[in-house]
């Protein structure tokens, strides 16, 4: 069974997911960071594929991605780094990146590598659902790789129906209209949106603007859990990643 599905089967509440870019802050940091995340009890990890033009990301992730690229990070190096990851890493792993890097790598080659190293899902925010369904869905399913879809406060009810039907793994519930790393304002409207998505038949995690224990618990109270990215990258940069993860407990 796909590790993502297993996770949601075993745990319905307070799932902690962490995002970090591969090859950051140093090229060889990918695996040690994964090990640290697992040791600190993180449930799910999204490994970012660095891209030159990350449209949906705020300044912190942009800068981190640029540093990873300057370190010489590539998708092939990432797969090489992950070659033996499954000897020690049991958490579900997701690759998150922009479509151009995957397309350039070759979709078939990409999926073959995902299968080889034990990737459970991908998040490709700029691959349109329609194109995915028509051209790639069968291949992703055959490879056992979930394509995790995003919903946002702007997603219309009509589109939500489509997304719910097409979703696999879980829904990435974007908390607010912003790029990554913004602040999350609590409001009745926001809570209604969280509740609406949580009521769907598929599990969901809330991301964007989750940065500490309080915001994590608040978000997790409306869903199966939440995703922290920018705040963790700041901790990596400062060298206090372990303390940061402990502060979330």
């Amino acid at each position, binding site marked *: 069974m796909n590790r993502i599905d297993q996770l949601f089967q075993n745990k319905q509440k307070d799932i902690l997911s962490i995002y970090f870019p591969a090859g950051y802050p140093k090229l060889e940091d990918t695996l040690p960071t994964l090990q640290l995340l697992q040791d600190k009890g993180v449930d799910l990890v999204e490994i970012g594929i660095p891209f*030159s033009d990350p449209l949906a990301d*705020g300044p912190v992730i942009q800068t981190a991605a640029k540093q990873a690229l300057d370190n010489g990070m590539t998708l092939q190096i990432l797969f090489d780094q992950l070659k033996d990851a499954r000897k020690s890493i049991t958490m579900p792993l997701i690759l998150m990146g922009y479509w151009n890097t995957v397309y*350039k790598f070759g979709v078939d080659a990409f999926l073959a590598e995902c299968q080889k190293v034990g990737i459970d899902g991908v998040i490709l*925010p700029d691959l349109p659902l329609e194109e995915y369904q028509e051209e790639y869905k069968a291949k992703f399913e055959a490879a056992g790789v979930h394509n995790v*879809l995003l919903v946002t406060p*702007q997603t219309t009810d009509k*589109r939500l129906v489509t997304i719910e039907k097409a979703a696999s793994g879980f829904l990435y519930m974007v908390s607010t*209209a912003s*790029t990554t790393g913004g602040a999350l304002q609590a409001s009745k409207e926001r809570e209604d949106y969280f509740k609406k998505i949580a009521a769907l038949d598929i599990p969901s995690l809330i991301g964007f603007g989750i940065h500490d224990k309080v915001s994590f618990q608040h978000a997790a109270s409306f869903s199966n859990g939440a995703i922290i990215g920018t705040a963790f990258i700041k901790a990596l940069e400062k060298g206090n990643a372990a303390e940061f993860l402990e502060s979330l407990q």
Partner: protein
Amino acid sequence: MKIKVCGLKHSKNIKELTQLPIDYAGFIFYPKSPRYVGEEFDAAIPALFSKSTRKVGVFVNEELDVLLAKGKKYKLDAMQLHGGESAEYCRKVKEAGFEVIKAFQMNDSFQFESLEKYGNVCDFFLFDTKTENYGGSGRKFNWELLENYKGSIPFFLSGGIGAQDAEQIKQLSHDKLYALDLNSGFELQPAKKNADQLEIFLNKLELNTMNKDKYAVDERGYYGEFGGAYIPELLRKNVDELQENYLKILASEQFKKDYARLLDNYVGRPTPLTKAGNLSKRYGTNIYLKREDLTHTGAHKINNTIGQILLAKYMGKKRIIAETGAGQHGVATATVCALFGLECIVYMGALDVERQAPNVARMKMLGAKVVPAISGNQTLKDATNEAIRDWIANPESFYLIGSVVGPHPYPDLVTRLQSIISKEIREQLEKETGNPNPNYVIACVGGGSNAAGAFYHYLNEKDVNLVAVEASGLGVESGETAATITIGDIGFIHGSKTMLMQDDDGQITEPYSISAGLDYPGVGPLHAHLAVSGRAQFLSATDEEALNAAKVLAESEGIIPALESSHALAVLEKMQFKKDDVVVINLSGRGDKDMETYMKKFN
């Protein structure tokens, strides 16, 4: 205008129709209709139509559960509700993910006010002839009644339309007329359509040529394999909103009137088509310059910003975001925002802010806020990224994009707004030479908006050679270049599938050209299609060649061109023309902004 063919049933008959440009295929699930599909209808039959034909189920006062179940079974895209269904019922159908077409029966006493409560719960209305039996009468209603419909929901025209009505339909000018619903007028017997008769009728409407235009964008925003809308879900609603509205607004009488008036008395159109006598002698042919340099703000960019600001206004937007490279689009945007009293935020790469100080000053004087983009390499690509990020964070804003790039519908929207250039060239050339078609149209391409505008009305004129000129910087082999088509390959940038300069790992590389308006690592998807299909010839000019061409034009014709336009002029040296050829060069902008560069070179 879209075409719906309704009352379909038989697979053999449908196979005869699949080659026709049918946008909606209707299947009647009302048991009392003579065209009822029946209890045992095979779900594979609607699927005989391609995905671009939407499948419509026609129901009359059906139980909601039954309707939804049929929708699922037959993979219907739309529901036509032909009975007395309530607005609440429509809402439920819409919420279930179907497009809703609500039918109403017209007679002289029909109250259009009664449609108001259906406004938010239907995608379309359908106006049919009033009968005892929910349509199917084969009679037309009095089409003059349509003039009383002032609502905003587009409608299908239905009821007894036949082969003899083509001319009358072409005269209909209602701006909400969206589609024709064809049924009994084209039948051999109930539910069996006459494919030949339909084809002749559609030809008469001249839809066939429109729909088969291989250089036009398709419904999902593709030119051949290029285009689309590769955007994060965060932008989906904004882009959908624009996709749904832009064609309707552009086709509305009000827009046409406002746009024409502003182009005429604010931009200063039509711009002249100048016969360049000395240049013609020099190259032994007949060279005409389309003088976009003479527009208000000094470049073609304003044709687009005038159109988009009207669009923003009609859509009720108050805050305008734009990106700019050299600052020409930024100035043109700041200009129209000042004119319409709208807030204007222009993103400009921090490096360009330094390089293009005069344009930064102009934008500020016009009241715009100029935000330096400090991400990436701090040029146009990064300014565009920042503008898109702003749009994500401020979804109520209008993103006024400056070239034929970005997610669908921007490439098509900007192309249409710039197409005024080739419209005028045709008229002016016909007056001048008796033939609207030249032998060559030459234009420079960065993102490609001036070229798209100069090519547009010639795309299907095979005898017109289209020449696009990219900036090759220090040379295509030098690594310091912006010649995307020459050295790029297929990729995705700013929401569009197109040709792209990138490394082996799919990282987008930084372009270089002396001209800030051409150093973009992508190119509009239309141009990628024109290049790959061979419709346009793509050449390139180096910095040096462009600078020299600017000098030649200045000295021979008394016109100082923008550095961008100089690239188009530069290929005159590389091409062979016949004495009788007519060559049109789109002079996209004037050179004032480039004087520092020119002086450095020539002093």
